[in-house]
């Protein structure tokens, strides 16, 4: 009946095996490489987590946010501020604080804007990030444009594992909440057809809001770890628009609305940028590159790299884009009424 018959048992075993290999690889990394590579993979872990959290609101819920960096920055500043001499909080305790603050901001910004069309939400989140950057630049207790330092007294390996565990936790949360729970079905229903979801008893605004708050709290934790790791933060390093841009591009390149898409995208892009940086040393060129990449992916590869995984074909967003043969059983194209979808 189906064009691609993938025996369920074999594919499950295969993915379990690859997962084990990857976990083994990541878990033992510091034991067999030098600090340079450990730092790079810490970056990969961080970006994988950041992209995954963006994917919650952008991919699963279908509301594109252009201001996620605001939450990353909030987490970074929360940790940095609380670890200042005089307050001296324990690092681990600062993380939940950042997450909660970020969640509150998401609630405040999301509540009026998620009721509306996606375009308003995109604008509002983007404006939030820009406004936050300006405020942080001006206000004293954030160190203004000069930034803040955090005590630099931990090892490379510590940060690696911290980032890795935090990211892994994020993926686990996404898996449990969005792939395996009732909530996930609701979120995806809202994305696919909001009117229908409403007519089936789903409180779409509430669902969107929950997804958004979740997508805000998670990067805040990563931000906190980042602040401690790089020992010095300022608006440019943790609130720059490029950070959101990268989250967006990584998710899109990897695969929107797919569990592993962000991880794939983050790994590919981060390693590429590191390589490019080492050989050409231009960071503005990187901006141009990810901009072009975003545009090209949207045009030609909307499913991202995940579209190339054979098993993922059954779960793809748009079959037509890859021009696969039609399924034989009663298939006759989707009723894509695009005029009904407004931004």
């Amino acid at each position, binding site marked *: 009946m189906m064009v691609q018959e993938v025996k369920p048992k074999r594919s499950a075993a295969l993915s379990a095996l690859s997962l084990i290999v990857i976990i083994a690889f990541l878990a033992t990394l510091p034991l067999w490489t030098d600090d340079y590579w450990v730092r790079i993979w810490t970056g990969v872990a961080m970006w994988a987590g950041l992209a995954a959290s963006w994917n919650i609101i952008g991919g699963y819920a279908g509301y594109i946010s252009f201001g996620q960096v605001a939450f990353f920055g909030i987490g970074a500043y929360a940790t940095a501020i609380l670890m200042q001499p005089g307050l001296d909080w324990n690092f681990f305790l600062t993380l939940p604080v950042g997450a909660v603050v970020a969640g509150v901001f998401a609630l405040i910004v999301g509540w009026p804007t998620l009721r509306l069309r996606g375009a308003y939400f995109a604008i509002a989140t983007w404006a939030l990030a820009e406004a936050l950057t300006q405020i942080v630049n001006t206000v004293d207790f954030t160190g203004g444009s000069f930034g803040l330092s955090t005590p630099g007294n931990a090892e490379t390996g510590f940060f690696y594992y911290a980032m890795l565990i935090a990211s892994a936790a994020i993926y686990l949360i996404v898996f449990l909440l969005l792939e395996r729970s009732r909530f996930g*079905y609701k979120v*995806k229903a809202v994305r*696919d*057809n909001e009117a*229908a979801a409403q*007519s*089936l008893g789903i409180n779409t605004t509430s669902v969107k809001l929950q997804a958004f708050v979740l997508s805000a709290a998670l990067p805040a934790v990563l931000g906190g770890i980042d602040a401690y790791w790089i020992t010095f933060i300022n608006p440019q390093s943790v609130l720059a628009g490029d950070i959101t841009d990268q989250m967006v591009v990584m998710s899109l390149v990897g695969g929107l609305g797919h569990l592993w898409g962000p991880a794939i995208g983050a790994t590919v892009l981060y390693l590429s940028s590191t390589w490019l940086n080492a050989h050409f040393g231009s960071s503005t060129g990187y901006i141009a590159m990810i901009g072009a990449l975003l545009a090209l992916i949207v045009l030609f590869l909307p499913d991202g790299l995940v579209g190339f995984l054979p098993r993922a074909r059954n779960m793809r967003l748009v079959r037509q884009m890859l021009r696969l043969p039609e399924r034989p059983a009663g298939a006759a194209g989707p009723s894509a009424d695009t005029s009904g979808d407004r931004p």
Partner: protein
Amino acid sequence: MNALAVSDLKRSFGGIRAVAGVSFNVAVKEIVGIIGPNGSGKSTLFNLLSGTIPPSSGAISLLGRDVTHQPAYRIARQGLGRTFQIPTPFINMTVRENLLAAAVEGEWRSARSRAEEVLDALEIGHIADDLAATLSGGQQRLLEFGRIQMRDPQIILLDEVTAGVNPRLRQIILARVRDLRQKGKTFLVIEHDMELVRTICERIIVMDAGEIVFEGTFEEVARNERVVDAYLGRPET
């Protein structure tokens, strides 16, 4: 207590009066058909009843409770189900996932088995794992119907549910409608298919230009000169 009671319902879009003062009741277990030319306000009426759009004025009550101005999801939770004129499947989810997404709040654990029941009743078990986007138009309508069935609503609004559906699927839908009617459900049906209207509707409301112009049985409607001229057309002999 009426299943549905509508009182002087009005809805305008800018200068256009889509629904211009509609009042009617639907008794429990009735199947009422709504017919009328395109643009007569039928679908807008459905949107008003289901809470998809708010009325400009007037009142709606569902099973005795006032639901005017309530959001669509609340009305759905109070026992109203509806299909849409253009099928609205969740295109990136499979048929089974579509059904699961429709499960009633608080009944998640029984949702899976209920979905199996619905799949069987509608004879779509063989496409349960297909993406909704790949279904034919008729299958998508069947899926919409199935989604409603997951929730077991008391009152069901069907908007041209058999339009463009092949005869076999049409039979399935009609059989299910009859079953549900037996179990005490109330139906409000927008249709252009007069055969269908004649066979299953007990009472018919005729709309034109946002107003109700006639109410009665099919025979009465078919005899009414005005309705025939404006909309039905004379039977070919």
